[in-house]
């Protein structure tokens, strides 16, 4: 390796980046745009589940139950229905996700037997929403029951409960408010950097092939390593700037608590950027047409990073073969690292497992890319 040649390559690449302001603007603005969209868009916190109510009785007690649902804050009544069949219709049209059916003898049953049943119907197409809404509904009913039990006890002249109740005292660590944003935003940063990085480098070599400049370049004494470093160094700087944008907006705009050290963050981020740029470069070296390279880049980055990195779908819930597959989805390591640094304040030693994963990755990619670059046309 020769410093003079390396400098010439890196300088040339920088000039080319500079001369294409449209691409440079995209490279720098894209992460911010994506941060804004995904940061706000990726949320699982359903605040107001649209609820249809079919109250057959319409008594004081039945209305009190409906009020419980509404005052819990989790439901908002989208429609009041007059017949059972209308529920199906309302759900088909997406007007409600949940429907509460109160029977005609609701308050009478409560008064005579002390118990009554109501029906909660869910549009279970979206299972996660249904699960959460189901929890909310049970919570609302439990609250109502506590009151009913107290009234029943008072009416029968007994002290409420001689059997002690279990008092559930959950304490949440690391993400105390259980705000899904704190969990998702670090993942969003990882995914955006993975996408931007691959996008930056995956065409750098194939473009030179298609323009014919590569033939000129490989007829000179440059080495594969020089070409790779010369290409990657300028993009590494862009990648760091992008990472800076994303991380700063995560902390100062989205208010994700940052409990770790800046040094840890910088080290791990730099390592991750090396990996993502290396992946793009490897694709670019292996596939000589820009069309092919971009198709492959889209294929190996967009969906795998979103679905297999653990940024939304927890890896430990996947079937074992898929879990094994995620080991090669490099953003998963960075997602883990970022979450730990942000929420747990972990340091480099705590993170040795994912760091090892990233390091192995970086070394393997660089090695493969350096080997894959052929100074031949055939």
């Amino acid at each position, binding site marked *: 390796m020769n410093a003079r040649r390396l400098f010439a390559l890196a300088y040339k690449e920088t000039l080319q980046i500079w001369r294409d302001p449209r691409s440079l603007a995209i490279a720098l603005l894209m992460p911010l745009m994506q941060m804004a969209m995904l940061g706000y868009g990726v949320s699982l916190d359903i605040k107001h589940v649209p609820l249809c109510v079919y109250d057959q009785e319409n008594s004081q007690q039945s209305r009190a139950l409906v009020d419980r649902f509404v005052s819990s804050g989790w439901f908002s009544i989208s429609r009041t229905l007059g017949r059972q069949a209308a529920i199906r219709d309302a759900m088909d049209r997406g007007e409600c996700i949940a429907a509460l059916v109160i029977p005609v003898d609701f308050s009478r049953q409560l008064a005579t037997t002390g*118990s009554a049943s109501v029906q909660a119907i869910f549009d279970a197409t979206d299972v996660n929403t249904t*699960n959460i809404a189901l*929890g909310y509904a049970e919570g609302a009913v439990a609250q109502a029951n506590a009151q009913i039990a107290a009234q029943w006890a008072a009416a029968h002249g007994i002290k409420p409960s*001689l059997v002690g109740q*279990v*008092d559930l005292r959950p304490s949440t660590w690391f993400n105390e408010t259980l705000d899904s944003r704190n969990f998702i935003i670090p993942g969003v940063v990882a995914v955006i950097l993975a996408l931007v990085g691959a996008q930056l480098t995956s065409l750098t070599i194939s473009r030179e092939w298609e323009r014919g400049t590569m033939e000129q370049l490989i007829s000179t004494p440059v080495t594969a390593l020089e070409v790779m470093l010369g290409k990657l160094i300028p993009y590494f700087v862009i990648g760091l700037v992008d990472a800076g944008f994303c991380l700063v907006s995560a902390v100062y705009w989205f208010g994700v608590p940052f409990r770790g050290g800046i040094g840890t963050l910088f080290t791990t981020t730099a390592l991750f950027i090396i990996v993502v740029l290396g992946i793009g470069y490897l694709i670019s070296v292996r596939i000589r047409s*820009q069309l092919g390279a971009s198709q492959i880049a889209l294929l190996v980055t*967009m969906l795998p990073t979103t679905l297999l990195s653990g940024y939304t779908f927890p890896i430990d*819930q996947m079937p074992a073969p898929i879990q094994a597959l995620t080991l090669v989805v490099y953003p998963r390591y960075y997602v883990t690292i970022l979450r730990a640094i942000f929420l747990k304040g972990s340091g480099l030693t705590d993170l040795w497992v994912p760091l090892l994963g990233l390091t192995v990755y970086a070394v393997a990619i660089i090695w493969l890319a350096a080997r894959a670059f052929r100074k031949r046309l055939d």
Partner: protein
Amino acid sequence: MFERLSVMLMKEFLELRRDRWAMFRLIAPLLIQMLVFGYAATFTVHHVATAILDLDQSQASRSLVSHFVATSRFDVVDVAKNQADITRDIEEDKAVIAIVIHAGFARDLENGRSAPLQVIVDGTNSNTALIALGYISQIVAQFSADQASRAFSPRVGTVPPEIGISLQTRPWFNEGLDDRWFFIPGVIGTLTLLQVVSLTAFAIVREREVGTLEQIMVSPIRPFEFILGKTVPFFLIGLGDIALVSTFGILWFHVPFIGSAWVMLLGASLFLLAALGMGLLLSTFSRTQQQAFALNFFFVNPFFILSGFAFPIAAMPKLLQWFTLVNPLRYFLVVIRAVFLKGVGIAVLWPQLAALAVLALAMLTLSVLRFRKSLD
């Protein structure tokens, strides 16, 4: 015009056939992705790693622990000896949930006092944490009811557990709450969007870069014919994609398909037209493949994330909800899920279908106009 169009079509298919890997490239990744993502995309919470510290060691506390062990929701990974173990389990990611039963738990229950049960949750993944907490409260409620009913028969003066409202839950359309049924149709739509938009966006930019576009444009072909010739093959490829992955979803993942294939075809066609329009539009904004590629990333990812694929549109801020109105995937996901799981028809789905038609028309018109201008 049909003659010129058929010549264009012939050329496109010839190019595709020449490329020996093209068919493989089009189909293999699609099926592999379908397989992997079909399994990966799940919010279901099973086997949550749980650590338990039982400082009471009573019959009641053991009974509570057995309630946790009995369900497949929780995997007890550590029976801890002291609080420090518990803390370490959580901090080192060995356990997501820790349950601490303090000494005196049984005594408190016996004496009718409320017995505190400490539950520590790693809230990093808030969704898992929320759902797990829900399960925990269900288990605890069950345990309390069991305790109460045991206590009720010999004693008087307690509230019988059956007093109150019982909630009967009916999850329609997906009784087993299998979230694969939710995600697989979403994966189908997303994969199609991704493939069609990127293929289209690149096709034209490539011709422009290689110089063949100029060659074609000096011929008497009209922009409209050119665009049609370019898009028809991708339209057919897209339809093939949807048919292929849908069949795969139905046969492999056993997602029920109870709706009409015709409604599906209509929805898919309109969706593909909109996706093609989007790809064309992107291509008119890019001069090089590099730019087309960047734009593709720039738009397709948000379209995918902000489609309701996994994250409910209702949970987004208003501004983003408005943005999703121009997202064809948003409408197609409603259509495809409704056709698969609910079996509803045009009478119900017409607003989505109409929106797709409007989007398709708008994007195609816009791209023809822009395309014409970009040639001047």
